[in-house]
Structures are given as structure tokens and as C-alpha cells.
């Protein structure tokens, strides 16, 4: 009898707990230092304000899980941090909820959200939060004269050692062309032609034997730290974190950077849609986006956030504004990822990239 009472009690506690947890949402992002910045700048303040819970999960990009959840009707993710091309594709395929931009909070000076967000950051189904960039970094201890250009990355004679690269066509092909001397503004026109694609692969061929391929964003700083590579393609926030927080002797090169947006989306059929919307509205307001930038050097997409960017959370001497991918110096030879180009040619180019890799 006592046993059953106990069982009943624990069952009812469980039931009760799940009722209380009804307003707990699952926010999915890319893990590592990036997720930490979001937890500190978005999750914690939102939890304090609303009393709701945020469960943070990691993934490594792509729409597969979202698609699987929506198609099976068992949607467990409420907010997902995705790349621009995925936000558009997911919206086209009808697996994302639409988000009305007019419900987003205006800037402190009254500028409506639609004008405050940068171009492309507000989509039918997505709200942007950061600008991030694919750049390359190197181990300072390995080179007496540091590399400065994209061409140096592909020059294994002058800068010997292994290279880390992302195992994906996107951004690698653009960088190969820029490393071959193509100016940023001509890259996509050239990549749209057969000759351009061949030129990109020919450039990649020159370092193929020296490349260690990575897939998750946390890998490249580790490869550098382990001495497995002397230079690696890396997301700018990850490498900044290794330098600023872990004191690693790494340098980074902005020349030839490929920058892109990350956006929040809600999978269609999310059980906590209202809470998810509230989370997105809260997280993408001016102050929150500026706060996030003091944890990692990904640039906020709101113009009104820029003046509010402070210094690094643990070291006030590092002014974060100088480390954003969107500073004038960093943008000198920079390329914005062309989502439409990749939406159209991604399949074809990735297939060729894979075939090239396996041969």
C-alpha cells in the first residue's frame, strides 16, 4: 500500500512538473562559444523576465532534423538558429512558421524594426541575429612572417604545414577563387561558369594533400591548438574565443572573408509557438543583440545595436567593436555569401565537391 502511495505521489509530481514546464522552450544553436554567448545574452535574461525555462540544444546546421520533426508531426524544437540559405529553403518548403516583422520591437530611438535590421536579416519566416564570417586563422608560433592574404593560405611553400578546411563546398570554393587572385565582387559571376568552377577546384587541388577536413565548428580551433594544422579555415567567433578566452597564440586574417547571417526560425507546428515568438522578439531587440556581442565577436544585425557594443565580458581592455567582421578594415576584401547562388547551385557544386574529395 505504502508503495502504491509513493508511486502515485511520484507520478503526480511528474505530471505536475510537466504542467509547469509547459512554457519551457527548446532553443537549438551551434554549440560551443557561440551557444554560450546566446545563453548569457538571451536565455538567462529571458528566463528571469518571463519565468519560462529555456532548454539549450546543439546541432551542426542544416534542415534535416527540422524537416524530420515537421514531417513526423513530433516537433520538439521551438527556436532554431539557422543560416540564411536554410531559412529561405525551409520557408519555401513550408516547414517553418511565418514571423511578422511588425511585431518586433522598434529601436530605442523609435526606428521601426524593418528599417533597423540590415538587408536580408528579416525574412518571411526568420529574424536575423548576427553576422558571422568564415575566415582563416594561423598558429603564430609556426611562422616568422605572418600570412596576410587569402593567397597565403594556399601557398604551402612559403607557409608550410597542414591546412584545416570545412568539408563542404560552400565558402571553400569562393575562398579558392579569391586565393587565386579573383576580386571578391567577381567571385559569384565566375563560379556560375564551368571555367570558374574548374579554376576553383584546380586551386583546391594545389593543397589537397595538405588538408585536414573538419565538419563541426568546434574542431578547427582544436586542430590548431593540437598542432595538427598550422592554418585553418574557421568561424571568426570560435577563433576569437580561443584567443581571448583561452589565450592561444593564434592570429587571424580578414582578407577574403566570406560573411553570412544567422537567423532564428520556428519549425512549423512548434508546441510553444507563442513563447518561441516572445523569445525571438526579446532576443533580437537592440540591447540583447549588443549584449551578445560582448561574449563573442559576431556582429549584431541591428544598426541601433552597434553603438551599444561594449567590451569583452572578462577583459574590459578588449573593445569588441574592433573585432567585428563588419569593421572597415575587415571588409576591405570581403564577400557576402550569396544565398540564392547556393540555393540554386549548392546541390550540384556539393556533389562535385564530394566527388573531387573522394577521387
Amino acid at each position: 500500500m505504502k508503495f502504491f502511495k509513493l508511486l502515485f505521489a511520484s507520478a503526480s509530481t511528474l505530471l505536475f512538473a510537466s504542467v509547469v514546464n509547459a512554457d519551457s522552450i527548446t532553443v537549438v544553436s551551434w554549440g560551443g562559444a557561440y551557444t554560450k554567448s546566446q545563453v548569457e545574452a538571451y536565455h538567462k535574461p529571458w528566463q528571469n523576465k518571463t519565468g519560462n525555462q529555456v532548454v539549450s540544444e546543439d546541432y551542426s546546421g542544416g534542415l534535416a532534423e527540422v524537416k524530420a520533426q515537421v514531417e513526423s508531426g513530433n516537433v520538439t524544437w521551438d527556436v532554431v538558429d539557422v543560416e540564411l540559405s536554410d531559412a529561405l529553403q525551409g520557408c519555401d518548403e513550408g516547414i517553418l512558421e511565418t514571423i511578422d516583422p511588425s511585431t518586433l520591437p522598434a529601436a530605442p530611438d523609435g526606428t521601426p524594426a524593418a528599417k533597423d535590421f540590415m538587408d536580408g536579416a528579416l525574412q518571411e519566416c526568420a529574424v536575423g541575429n548576427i553576422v558571422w564570417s568564415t575566415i582563416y586563422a594561423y598558429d603564430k608560433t609556426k611562422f616568422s612572417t605572418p600570412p596576410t592574404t587569402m593567397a597565403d593560405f594556399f601557398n604551402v611553400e612559403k607557409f608550410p604545414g597542414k591546412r584545416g578546411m570545412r568539408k563542404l563546398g560552400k565558402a571553400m570554393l569562393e575562398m579558392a577563387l579569391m586565393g587565386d587572385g579573383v576580386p571578391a565582387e567577381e567571385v559569384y559571376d565566375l563560379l556560375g561558369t564551368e571555367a570558374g568552377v574548374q579554376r576553383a577546384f584546380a586551386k583546391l587541388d594545389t593543397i589537397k594533400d595538405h588538408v585536414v577536413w573538419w565538419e563541426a565548428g568546434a574542431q578547427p580551433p582544436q586542430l590548431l591548438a593540437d598542432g595538427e594544422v598550422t592554418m585553418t579555415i574557421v568561424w571568426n567567433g570560435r577563433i576569437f574565443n580561443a584567443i581571448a578566452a583561452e589565450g592561444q597564440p593564434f592570429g587571424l586574417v580578414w582578407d577574403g572573408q566570406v560573411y553570412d547571417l544567422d537567423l532564428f526560425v520556428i519549425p512549423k507546428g512548434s508546441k510553444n509557438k507563442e513563447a518561441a515568438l516572445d523569445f525571438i522578439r526579446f532576443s533580437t531587440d537592440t540591447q540583447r543583440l549588443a549584449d551578445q556581442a560582448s561574449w563573442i565577436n559576431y556582429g549584431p544585425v541591428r544598426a541601433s545595436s552597434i553603438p551599444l557594443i561594449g567590451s569583452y565580458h572578462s577583459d574590459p581592455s578588449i573593445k569588441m567593436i574592433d573585432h567585428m567582421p563588419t569593421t572597415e578594415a575587415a571588409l576591405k576584401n570581403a564577400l557576402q555569401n550569396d544565398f540564392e547562388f547556393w540555393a540554386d547551385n549548392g546541390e550540384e557544386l556539393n556533389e562535385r565537391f564530394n566527388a573531387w574529395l573522394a577521387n
Partner: protein
Amino acid sequence: MLASQNNNNQKVLTTDGIPLKKKLSKALFRSRLRAFGLVTPLLLLISIGFVFPIIVFLTRGVYNDTFEKYMVNLTPILSEWDGKSEPTEDMYEALVLDLVWLKETKNIGKVASRMNRELSGSRSLFTSSARKAKKLEAPFKESLTKVKKKWAKLETWRAMKVTSQSLSPVFLASALDMKYTADGTIVQKSPERRIHVKLFIRTLEISLVVVIAGLILGYPVAFLLANLPIRISNLLLILVLLPFWTSLLVRTTAWIAMLQGQGVLNDLFVVFGIATDQDRFTLIYNKAGTLISMTHILLPFMILPIYSVMKTIPPSYVRAAKSMGATNWTAFWRIYFPQTIPGIGAGAILVFILAISFYITPALVGGQDGTMISNFIDYHMRKSLNWSLAAAMGGVLLVIILFLYWVYDRVVGIDNMKLG
């Protein structure tokens, strides 16, 4: 009545007058029913949770009705079109009608991504044209080609014809590096796009090498386990089982720590002067890494069946052979070894089938030339979202495994296998 009585008289009866045969079969039937009842849950679980989903998923490899389902007006016209003549105004009109409807129902993305797999660049062609479709006026051929020139191209229409066939070998062909065209022919892809056949071959090659390496490494260990005094052999057995109980992921990561450029093994090589500090061996993120770690991970599956078969071989056989003048080698090769073949067969087929579908380990340590076909199935499941192609590749892999199983049965015989 009389006839049946006569009949009954000739049969053996049980005490209650029912023929023994009938009673026996009744009893047997009941026990059979009970046995069946006991396995029913498992049977249901397997068919609902395993066989059925696999079949459903495999059909995706040959059946994809995205186009037919959403392009309701155009599909019937396309099926009658010969694929060579100039597209007619009717076809353009049907296309515009479908585009308008797709835009309104928000299904344009599905068709656009399906088409983009057939013809690169179709995604934006479809989505941007659908945005303007509502405002278009007849003649549609003219107004649509004004929006996008590609609509005038025969290539676009031929791609639509291929996509409009729901039941088609288009994905199977793609899984074998070929292309199914609108004329119904299948042609090989250009060399820089061929990849799958090479990967299938590499997968078989890696699996085979893992089996052979496992046999060479595992057989002596199994022999020791079976023949050493029980106290030592038990300790050895634990050493074999310990990694077996450890997570696959942990063992793979341990191999990364062992084999990488700055890893334990390379450090030792440098200390002993086998390699220089600048020029260390590349033992991981390539085929060597995959082979080494897979062999280690699958080794227990080779050792255990061989060991359990060896355990059952009476030592007196070898002693008898020796007493009749056989040398150590002859006694082993002619007497002992043939008796272990069922164990070798079981171990080899177990390791081979596990190896052929291995995917976590090659994904982590495979680099560029150590990845296997399963990694590409995974890629199309998770990254490119081309589930139809993934299903087709999975289907091909399944057929290869079944074929090899059939060959194995013919050559070695599946009955000639023992797990203990």
C-alpha cells in the same frame, strides 16, 4: 454413421475415444499456438518497427511523386509530350496555372527543390517565376519566357518531363553514377561527377581488409583463450571483452588520440627516430585510420565466435594425431584448423556485415579517402536532404549484401557456421 464407426475401429483410440492422431495434432497445435503467441510481440515489433519502415523508405528510392502531386495540370500533358518537339502553348498555360496555385498554397519550394536536383538552377527559376505567375497574360509562352529566358530552353522541359514521372529509375541511376534522361535512356555521368560506384567498391574493399586483418589478429588470440589454463584465459577474455563493452565513440576517439600527427604513436616514432618531428606519419583522417580503428573495434566479433568453437574441440584429437606421427604443423593444419572453420565463417560474416555498414568511425577518422558509402547515405539524409537518393543508395547496398550472402552460402554454405 456405420462407415465412420468402422473407420474409428481401425484407428488407435485414446481413453476418451478420440483417435490418437487427432488428439496428438490437437495437442501439438495448441503448443504451436502458444509458441506463436509468445513470439508474436517480437514479430509485431520487428514488422512494425523494422521491416515496414525499411520497405516504405526503400520505395522512396524509386518513387517520388512531388512533381505529379503538385503540378496537376502540367503532368498529364508532359507525359504525352515526346521530349523533342517545341513545347506548345498548352504546356505553358498549364505550367502558369500550376505555378499560381503552388504560390498560393505555399508548396512552390517542394517542387522547386525537387526540380533543382534534376537541373541545377531550377530552384530560383521556379520560385521567382511563381512570384510573378499571377500577373502573366496569354500568350503564356511569350510572357513566361520574358520573366525567365530559361523557360524557352528544351533542357528545362526535358528535366520537367523526367521529374514528372513518379515511378522512375532516376535515383537508382544516380546512385550508380548514371543519369536517366527524358528519352528513357540511361547514360553515364561525366567523370568529375562520378563517385558512388567508387565508394561502393571502396566500402567492399575496406570491409574485406578488416575481415582479413581481424582473422590474422584474432585467430591466435582465440587459440590462446581456448588453450591457456583457465585462470590466465579468463583474464585474457576480460581484456577482449573490456573494449567490447566500451562505447564505440570512446574507442574511436581514443584512436584519434593515439594516431594523430601529435599523437602517442607518432611521439614514440619521433623518440625512437623512426620519424622526424617535422615529418610525422599520417595515420589518421585517411584510409589507414579507418582500417586500423575498424579492425580494432570489430576484433571481438571475430575472436568470440572462433573462441567458442575452439572451446568445443577436444584436445585429444590433436594428441591422437601427434601420437600417430604428425608434426605440430600437420596436426594443426589437418586436424585442428578444419574444425575451427565454422567459427571462422561465423566471425568473418559477422565482421563483414557489420563493417560494410559502418559509419560513425569512418565519419570521424576517414578524412577524404577513408569514408564509406554509409557516410554518403548519411550525407544525403542529413545535409542535402535528398532522401530519395539516400533510399536508392541504401537499396543498392542491401542488394549487394544479399548477393554476397548468397555467394557465401553457395561457396561456404551458411549451415557451416557456428557461434559456439
